[in-house]
C-alpha cells in the first residue's frame, strides 16, 4: 500500500471514528433525556389521558389549564395526608406574606364593636390615623362616604387597607361633637405583635401578650420587657394564649430572652442531620420570676417557646393544653406567584421529645371562664402565694 493510500485510510478512519462518536454522544444524550422524561412523566401518563379526555368531550366550559393545574396540585398534595402542606394561589399569598412580615399599607388602628354594635377605633401610636387626629374611642361611621353598617370587621379592615401613599376619607363620630371627616394617607403599618402593661391588680407584675411571631416580634418583646422593668415590674406573665405561631426565628429569639444558656430546640429534617438550636446566656428576663399562659389555640412556634420554657423548668405553664403542632412548614414562592407551604421538619423540645399531638399539658390546668380571666387570676395568685 502506498503512503498516500495509508494516509487516506487513516483520514477516513479518523473521520469515521469522529462521526460515530458524535452520533454516539447525541444518542446517549437523547436516551438519557427520554429516561429522565419517562421517569418524571411515565407515572403521570394516565393523568394526561384524563386531561385530554376532558378536553375532547366534557359538557360545558372547562376551567382554564391553570385552574385545572391548581386542582391537580391540590389533589396530589391531599395524598400526603398532612393538613399543613398546602398550595396557595397568588392572591392570598400576598396577604399572608404581609401578615407574617408585619407590614401593609393602612391607617394603623385597631377596631372592634362596642356593646351597641358601633365600630370603635384605636390608633397605634405615631400611625397615620393618630397623626391625622383619630383618637382612641372614636366611632367609625363611613369609609370614603360608604357606611360601615352591616360590614364585618374583616371587611372594614380590608377597605381601610390599600397601597402605601393612597388616601382614605373616614367619617367619624366623637360625641358630643357632630360627625366629622378626616382624610388619612395610608402608610406602611407595622402590626404590633404584642401588647403589654403592668397589671392593675398588682403593678409589680408585668403582663406581656404576644399574639403572633412576626419579623419584628423579638425586638418588640425586648422593648416591652425593658419598659415593664422600667415601670417597676419584678415578675412577668408571658401570655401565649391564642397565639397560633408564625415565624420560628423570632420565636427562638423571644424564648432566648427568658432563658439562660442551653438547648432551645432540635429540628429534624428529611434529608439533613438533626440541627440543635441553643439559647444564650444573659437573656434580659432570664432571672425574672415567670409564668406562661397557654390555651388550645397556642400552636406551633408558640408551643416551641412554651415547651422550651417548660422542659427547661424555667417557669410553669398555666391554662389549657395547647394545640399540638410540632411540625415546621417552609414557604416556597412558585414561579407564577402562588406559593407552597411544605411540612419540612419536626421540632423537638429540649428533652428531645416532639410536641405531642394533644399538645403541651400545663403545670396548672385552669379552664377559661366567661366574664373573668381565670388563668390570669391564677397566675397572679401563684406569684402572690408561691403556689
Amino acid at each position, binding site marked *: 500500500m502506498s503512503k498516500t493510500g495509508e494516509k487516506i485510510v487513516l483520514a477516513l478512519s*479518523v473521520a469515521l*471514528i*469522529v462521526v460515530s*462518536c*458524535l*452520533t*454516539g*454522544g*447525541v*444518542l*446517549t*444524550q*437523547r436516551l438519557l*433525556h*427520554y429516561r429522565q*422524561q419517562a421517569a418524571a*412523566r411515565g*407515572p403521570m*401518563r*394516565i*393523568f*394526561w*389521558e*384524563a*386531561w*385530554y*379526555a*376532558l*378536553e*375532547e368531550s*366534557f*359538557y*360545558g366550559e*372547562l376551567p382554564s*389549564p*391553570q385552574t*385545572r*393545574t*391548581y*386542582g*391537580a*396540585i391540590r*389533589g*396530589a*398534595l391531599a*395524598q*400526603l395526608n*398532612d393538613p399543613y402542606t398546602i*398550595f396557595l394561589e397568588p392572591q392570598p399569598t400576598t396577604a399572608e406574606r404581609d401578615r407574617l412580615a408585619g407590614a401593609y399599607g393602612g391607617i394603623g388602628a385597631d377596631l372592634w364593636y362596642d356593646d351597641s354594635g358601633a365600630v370603635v377605633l384605636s390608633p397605634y401610636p405615631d400611625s397615620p390615623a393618630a397623626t391625622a387626629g383619630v383618637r382612641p374611642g372614636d366611632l367609625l361611621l363611613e369609609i370614603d362616604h360608604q357606611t360601615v353598617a352591616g360590614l364585618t370587621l374583616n371587611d372594614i379592615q380590608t377597605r381601610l387597607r390599600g397601597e402605601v401613599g393612597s388616601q382614605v376619607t373616614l367619617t367619624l363620630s366623637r360625641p358630643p361633637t357632630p360627625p366629622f371627616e378626616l382624610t388619612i394617607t395610608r402608610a406602611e403599618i407595622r402590626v404590633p405583635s404584642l401588647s403589654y402593661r403592668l397589671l392593675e391588680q398588682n403593678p409589680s407584675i408585668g403582663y406581656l401578650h404576644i399574639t403572633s411571631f412576626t419579623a419584628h416580634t423579638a425586638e418588640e418583646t425586648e422593648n416591652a420587657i425593658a419598659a415593664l422593668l422600667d415601670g417597676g415590674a419584678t415578675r412577668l406573665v408571658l401570655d401565649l394564649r391564642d397565639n397560633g405561631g408564625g415565624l420560628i426565628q423570632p420565636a427562638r429569639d423571644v424564648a432566648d430572652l427568658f432563658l439562660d444558656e442551653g438547648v432551645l430546640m432540635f429540628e*429534624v429534617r*428529611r434529608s439533613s442531620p438533626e440541627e440543635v438550636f441553643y439559647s444564650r446566656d444573659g437573656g434580659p428576663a432570664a432571672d425574672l420570676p415567670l409564668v406562661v399562659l397557654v390555651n388550645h389555640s397556642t400552636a406551633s412556634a408558640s408551643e416551641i417557646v412554651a415547651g422550651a420554657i417548660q422542659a427547661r423548668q424555667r417557669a410553669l405553664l398555666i391554662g389549657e393544653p395547647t394545640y399540638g403542632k410540632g411540625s*415546621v412548614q417552609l414557604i*416556597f414562592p*412558585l*414561579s*407564577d406567584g402562588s406559593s407552597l407551604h*411544605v*411540612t*419540612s*421538619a419536626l421540632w423537638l423540645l429540649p428533652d428531645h421529645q416532639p410536641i405531642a399531638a394533644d399538645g403541651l399539658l400545663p403545670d396548672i390546668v385552669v379552664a377559661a371562664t366567661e366574664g373573668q380571666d381565670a388563668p390570669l387570676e391564677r397566675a397572679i395568685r401563684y406569684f402572690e402565694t408561691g403556689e
Partner: protein
Amino acid sequence: MKTVLRVLLVLALLFFTGLIAFAAGFGVSQLIGPRVELSQVLTPAIPTSPPTTFPTPPPPANTDEETFQLFWEVWEIVQREFYGELPDMQTVTYGAIRGMLETLDDEYTSFIEADIAAVTREDASGSFQGIGAFVRMRDDGELELVSIIPNSPAEAAGLMSGDRVLQVDGHSIVGLGVYEAIALIRGPAGSQVTLLIERPGQPELFEVTITRARIEIPLVESEMLEGNVAYIRLTEFSATATAQMESALEEMMAQQPVGLILDLRDNPGGWLDQAVSVADLFLGEGIVLIERGSDGSEQVFRSHDGQPYESIPLVVLVNGGSASASEIVAGAIQARGRGILIGEQTFGKGSVQRPYTLSDGSELRVTIARWYTPNDVAIHGEGLAPDIEVVLPETLEPGQDPQLERAVQYLLSGE
C-alpha cells in the same frame, strides 16, 4: 520501538478526538434537545362504550405542558423537603386527577380506580364470571354473603346468605376493600376457587371449593298480582336489561293481564342504549329523548312501532332512587301520555357520561351531554314529578307497599 510509540500516539489521538466528538454530540444535542418529544408519553384515551369512534386527541398544546410545569415545580419541592412518608406515584397521579376533576364542578364526571372499574365494568355487561353471590363488607372488615343467585355455583356449593368469607385460596381477605375482595373471588369460568367460610352459629370454620361459572346477573323480578295485574321490576339498565325484560314480559303477557306495573324504584340507571330499547318495548313510533352537547349538537333517540306491549295500561313506579336511565324511560312514558308515574319525585340526573378506560385500567366518566324528555324538558337537578304522589311513611311494616297498592288500584279502577 518508534513504531509502537507512533501507533500508541495515533491511538491516543483517535481516542481523544472521539471523546471530544462524543462530548460535542452530547452537548449539542442537549442544547437543541428535542423538547417536543414530551408528547410521546401521551396516548389517546381508549373509549369503552358507547362504541363510537373518537378522534385521536390533538397533539398536546405546548401551553398545557407549560402551564402544568407548576405541578412539577411543586412536586420537586415536596420530594426534596416534605417531612414524612411520600405516597407512591400512582397514588399521587390519582390524587392529581381527582383534584383536577374537582375544579369542573360536576359531580358526575368521576374517576374510578382500576380494581373498582373492573368489577363495575363487568357488572354493567350484565354477567360476570364468579361464584354467584351478592356480598357486602361488614364494619368489622369481614365479607358477608348477602344473597345467593339461584342455580349458581355458590348455591350448589351450599353457601348461604349470612356466611362470611375469611380467606380466598388461602389468602386472608379480612380488611380488604370490597372491590379488592370481589376481584379475588371472581375469575374465569371453569377455574376453581377455595373459600374459607365462617357461618354464624356454627363454631367450626369450613372450606369449600367452587368451580366458577359465567353468571347472568338477574335484573328483573316479575309476578302476577291479584286482579291479574302484571308486575315487573327492573333493578339496573345493564347490557342484558332489555333481553331480560322481554323474556319476563313474554311469560306474563301469556296470562293476558289487565295492566302492567313497571317498577323503577331505586334503579340507579345504566346504559343509555338499554334505556332507549326498554322504553321502546312500551312505546310506538316517536321520540324517547333528545341529547344535546354543549356545542349545540343534537341527537334524537326514537322508539319504533311493532312491540306487543305498546297498548297495555301502564303504571311506572318511581322514587328518589330512580335516576338517569330510569328517568329516561319514566320521562318518555309520562311525556308521551303512554302511562302514569306513581310514587315520589325522581332523582334528577339529566346528564350523560362517556366512560374512558385509561391505560392502567382505571376509568374516567366524562359528562358529555344533557338529555331532554320528548317534550324538550330538562330534568337535571329537578327530577320527574309523579302524576300520583304516594310518599312512604317513616316506618313500614314488612310486606307493606302503599305505592304498589296505589298502582294496582289505579289499574283496576282507572283512577
